[in-house]
């Protein structure tokens, strides 16, 4: 199966996201992008990782945040905020978030897990070959969503030979889907060779996609 055909559902989903009205921008709802393990996906690949363009986190995994400094403040109503600064790294299962500044908000003393995480400064989110870059990011653990935003420069998502750019990239971390909004550019390049792709002697030869050509100009 060609790369272009495999990524077609994702690209279509991104195009839908790119054409969202400004009113939709305030709603971090991920579109129905290619679901993990969709029909037509290469059966030899882990369906939950390789065929996913977005990011997905494991709520049942341990969250570890490391930094050089931290400051915790407790509100009178019991809410607690911990701000991590300098060389911040948050890791949960195979997802990693690097940044300069991270604020974790705990809803009440009994809640061990922060319900909201806000990251600023050189934010890099990586998972299974997917790398997202932005100036600031917000993770909502309750809604299971994340926003990657950039001021001036675009937020980017890179995976293997494919790139997505946009003013804001929304992730549904439970579904593993992605939506880019604002000046969206999607680049899908021909892979030289995919070592994980199963051999299919009956598959028709697909024409090579032109490299570095924007596939989806902003609508």
């Amino acid at each position, binding site marked *: 199966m060609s790369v272009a055909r495999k990524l077609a559902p994702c690209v279509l989903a991104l195009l839908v996201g790119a054409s969202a009205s400004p009113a939709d921008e305030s709603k971090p709802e991920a579109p129905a992008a290619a679901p993990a393990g969709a029909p037509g996906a290469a059966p030899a690949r882990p369906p939950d990782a390789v065929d996913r363009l977005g990011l997905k986190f494991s709520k049942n995994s341990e969250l570890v945040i490391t930094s050089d400094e931290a*400051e915790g*403040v407790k509100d009178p109503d019991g809410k607690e905020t911990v701000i991590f600064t300098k060389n911040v790294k948050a890791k949960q299962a195979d997802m990693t978030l690097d940044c300069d500044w991270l604020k974790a908000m705990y809803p009440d003393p*009994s809640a061990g897990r922060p319900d909201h995480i806000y990251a600023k400064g050189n934010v890099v989110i990586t998972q299974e070959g997917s790398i997202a870059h932005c100036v600031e990011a917000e993770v909502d653990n309750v809604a299971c969503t994340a926003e990657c935003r950039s001021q001036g420069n675009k937020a980017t998502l890179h995976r293997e030979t494919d790139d997505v750019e946009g003013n804001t990239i929304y992730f549904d971390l439970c579904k593993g889907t992605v939506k880019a909004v604002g000046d969206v550019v999607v680049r899908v390049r021909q892979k030289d060779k995919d070592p994980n792709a199963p051999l299919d002697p009956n598959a028709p030869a697909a024409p090579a996609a032109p490299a570095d050509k924007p596939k989806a100009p902003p609508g």
Partner: protein
Amino acid sequence: MQKPGRAARWLVGACCAALGACNTSISDLENGDARPQIEMPPVEMTGVLFEGYHGDLRDLSVKATSATVDMKTKLAHLHDVQIGFADDPNSKMDISAPVGDFHLDGDDFALSGGVSGTTAADEHFKSQAITYVSKTRTIVSDVPVELHRSSVVMTANRMEFEVPTHKLHLWGNVHAKVKPQ
């Protein structure tokens, strides 16, 4: 302002009482007697208990299995110390340590030998040694510290904890581990 160092001052009073019991009064030592000045040996006490102090919205209690009060160095050296203090009932903190040093002419104290503390919010911390700086009303640990809160475990090389505001500062290899729910 009332401060935990008052416990140390109480120890001074206890020390004086102990000296009085030994027929050696402070006034005798301080007046211009021709007798050679007697250097007081450290006073040793056991079963030290000081509690019920209440002032400026702060409760303070100090317990220790034994104490050595040295009037020369103005230091009260306590063993198996338990300290409890709070600005209000919700901010009560209990700290225990094998060793405690109270400065008699100041309000600061130092705990060492493996310090552990708990708060009213069921949080607890561990450190080899801490100091209480009365000027800033801050608990300081200049050695690695470990804090537990619900399912969160935090470790760092240094800690400062502001008692009135419960503001926590951590420095050096800060590590926060959140266990899965």
